[in-house]
């Protein structure tokens, strides 16, 4: 898919290093391969709408940014619930397909499934071509 992942929390780079050494490397062989960024001060979380200033941490927010540097998707959760990487991957594949073809992808679309070509001919006829 050719995607860059950047992880970010308010922890310092020193804590990131030790977390990688002490824990992540035991969960993922070789440790996580992507940069672990330090949002010390929460400035970045603030501009991305995910900084909880009472707790002093960035909550679970994730953003898909396309090659033109446009934000295509965001998902923000409070800390208790973890994310669903399969849905993240699905959304990236859908956005990449849209960018490559100009087609649009209906709800729950997975690669290989029918896409829609917006235009006058499709108005009122989606039911004929898309049968979920």
């Amino acid at each position, binding site marked *: *898919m*050719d*995607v*860059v*992942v*950047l*992880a*970010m*929390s308010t*922890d*310092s*780079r*020193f*804590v*990131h*290093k*030790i*977390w*990688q050494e002490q824990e992540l490397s035991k969960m993922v062989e070789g440790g*996580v*391969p*992507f*940069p*672990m*960024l*330090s*949002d*010390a*001060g929460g*400035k*970045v*979380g*603030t*501009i*991305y*709408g*995910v900084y909880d200033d009472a*707790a002093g*941490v*960035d*909550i*679970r*927010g*994730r*953003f898909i*940014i396309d*090659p033109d*540097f*446009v*934000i*295509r*998707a*965001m998902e923000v959760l409070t*800390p*208790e619930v*973890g994310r669903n990487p399969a849905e*993240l991957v699905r959304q*990236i594949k859908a*956005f*990449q397909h849209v960018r490559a073809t100009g087609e649009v992808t209906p709800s729950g679309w997975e690669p290989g499934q029918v896409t829609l070509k917006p235009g006058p001919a499709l108005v009122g006829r989606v039911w004929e071509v898309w049968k979920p």
Partner: protein
Amino acid sequence: MPELKEGCVKPARGPILPAPPPPVSGAIPSSQEVPMMLAKVGKEAIDFEATAFIEGVGFQPVKLSDYKGKWIVLCFYPGDFTFV
């Protein structure tokens, strides 16, 4: 990129915005205060700079715009050594 010169404290820097247009002469200068949340879907991402730990590399300053031209997933999380 050179290895970061080591210090104890290194806050993230952002938003990195284009320079504002020069003020019109005679106008009252507007507040320089940055709005709280700038990120919106369908709009350009807001650039920032932060220090990173990268496996096999070490500590390095990273700008979001370093990755312009690629698909990027920017992922915030509450903290190292948390549970979920």
